[in-house]
């Protein structure tokens, strides 16, 4: 079982307590009513889905219930780091894409 570090609980917890919540750092547009259908589609449906490092939202739903962000490698399924919601993308040094 994977252990995921919850930045709010401050410790590694079993993955069963967590739930994936989509790609992170997607800003909700402020002018949604004025957007073209293509722009809205891009915001709402289109995700990057890369092979390698992804930035994702996760929720410690069966723990502190907080949303946070994580950098994960989709090839190895390894969590590189986790950080609180609202914090900027961390510098992953050589490992980051």
């Amino acid at each position: 079982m994977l252990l995921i570090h919850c930045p709010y609980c401050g410790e590694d917890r079993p993955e069963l307590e967590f739930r994936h919540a989509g790609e992170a750092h997607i800003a909700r547009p402020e002018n949604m009513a004025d957007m073209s259908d293509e722009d809205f589609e891009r915001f709402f449906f289109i995700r990057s889905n890369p092979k390698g490092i992804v930035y994702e939202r996760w929720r410690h739903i069966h723990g502190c219930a907080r949303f946070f962000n994580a950098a994960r490698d989709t090839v190895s399924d390894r969590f590189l780091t986790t950080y609180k919601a609202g914090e900027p993308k961390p510098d992953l040094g050589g490992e980051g894409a």
Partner: protein
Amino acid sequence: MADAIARASALEGRFLNDEGITLVRAEPATRLSLRAPKTAVKSLSKALGLDLPQRPKTSTAKDGRAALWLGPDEWLVIDENEADLVGACASVSAFHSAVDVSHRNTAILVSGPRAEAVLNAGCPQDLSLDAFPVGACSRTVFGKTEIILWRTEKDAFRVECWRSFSDYVFMLLKAAARDR
């Protein structure tokens, strides 16, 4: 037709006492789901008569009343003397949310030298004394259900679960206790 419907509480009659493990239904208690920002913690602590814990996985308890840290702004308050917890918070003017969940939850007391192993049959957390000391508490999973686990003594845990899940939780604990 029956004149009255007998009211049976969840887990009524359920009990297990096996080698190194005892499962008992906890006595009814009042419970409060408390959400509050940092600014309200002080006045709520005063109103409830015990300090709301601020660090993850910690609890405070006094005279049958306990506050369990669930999240950065969330606590479960349990009063075994069935005191009016909502009433106690009503005088606090600071912004908060206090919801009575006394009848949503029920609890099973798991005790004995094998308690840790029995709980680990369904709970993936590290329950060794180093990682989960006396007084530690956490919302977590047990099998397919969500529970709130609280270590009250070295060999004793309180398992809070939703009452509709309580049969499942008890049966799974019982099955785990058989396995040695």
